[in-house]
């Protein structure tokens, strides 16, 4: 099962089937890779934080930047990974989970944030302890310009929807930022999105 989800994550990345990265693009990605080469520990740090905050439901739309975390969640005995068909399902799921007494965290890519806009109404209306981790596209060495419009407006969309935005740009700050975000979301009922920058995730995943 985890393998299946991992493959789905790969599929989503290759949603631009006729595009083959040029040599120049590959070089750009190679440069941005430097920060992520040793970064395998931050998804594990996020997993530990979600565990510590007793998050039980983890809805997601696959993204390569989240693939390691998704695998950990699917293998966890305390968290349930819930594969969605569209990100807005996750917002509604979080509302139901909260009504039933469970914490949830939504994993998605920046393009998915746009899919959620009307459903974000629930975050305010139900005063949800909403927490989401968003892997960014379209902001750092992006090779697919179709990712740029949504990547450029992700933060503004959240803020217009009444959701606070925190950002982690480097592997070293992921733990601190995610911890702060989870604390304000779950303890203070302050809806929060943590953006995991494309620089952090590295472009390596796009070319595989």
């Amino acid at each position, binding site marked *: 099962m985890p393998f299946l989800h991992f493959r789905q994550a790969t599929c989503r990345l290759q949603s631009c089937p006729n595009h083959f990265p040029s040599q120049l693009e590959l070089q750009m990605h190679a440069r941005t890779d430097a920060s992520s080469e040793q970064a395998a520990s931050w998804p594990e740090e996020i997993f530990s934080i979600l565990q510590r905050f007793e998050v039980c439901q983890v809805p997601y739309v696959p993204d390569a930047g989240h693939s390691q975390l998704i695998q950990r969640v699917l293998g966890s005995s305390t968290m349930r990974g819930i594969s969605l068909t569209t990100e807005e399902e996750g917002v509604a799921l979080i509302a139901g989970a909260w009504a*039933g007494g469970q914490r949830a965290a939504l994993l998605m890519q920046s393009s998915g944030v746009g899919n959620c806009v009307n459903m974000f109404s629930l975050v305010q209306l139900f005063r949800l302890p909403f927490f989401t981790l968003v892997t960014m596209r379209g902001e750092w060495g992006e090779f697919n310009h179709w990712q740029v419009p949504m990547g450029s407006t992700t933060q503004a969309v959240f803020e217009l929807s009444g959701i606070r935005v925190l950002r982690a740009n480097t592997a070293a700050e992921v733990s601190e930022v995610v911890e702060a975000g989870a604390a304000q979301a779950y303890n203070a009922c302050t809806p929060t999105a943590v953006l995991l920058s494309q620089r952090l995730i590295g472009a390596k995943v796009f070319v595989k």
Partner: protein
Amino acid sequence: MSKANLLDRRSVVSSLLKDRKGMVAVGGLGASTNDMAAAGDHDRNFYLWGGMGGAVMMGLGLALARPDTPVVVITGDGEMLMGMGSLATVGLQKPGNLSIVVLDNEAYGETGGQVSHTASVADLVGVAKACGISDARAMTTLAEIAAFAASLQDVKAGPRFANVKIDAANLERVLPMQDGTFIVTRIRGSLGLKPI
């Protein structure tokens, strides 16, 4: 397109909720949530006034959080069509305690009665089955509804999906409370959860 055996929506919903015991009921945006209010207010009524397309997912989140509590989502064909992908998500998770009932009048009744996809091409029972919800059925009589209502208490045998063709009469509105935070906090309280 058959117009025979159309049931009265209020009779369907009151039958579903009559002996509900601890069941949580999520009412989709529109007339369905009003039907729930008409059947009588309840601490475990999750009234929706928006978030169109999200009713099934709210039911799923609740059902997964409380596996011993029956959860029923009562919604309309338009709301269900908007969240059709969520049937695949339910099919994957297979919560035994979740049931979905669509009150299908083949129209967007709240906005002037515009014809919906279920009037001609969309077969929601077929969609639910194809999404892995094997207990998916069309119900045409109140006797079937009553038997189905009793089965909702079995929290191991779901997920269930039922489509009920109802008549398109626009009934007098019975409006539930609108305060979302109160509605959720009340459900949480009835489940023994403390306020934040």
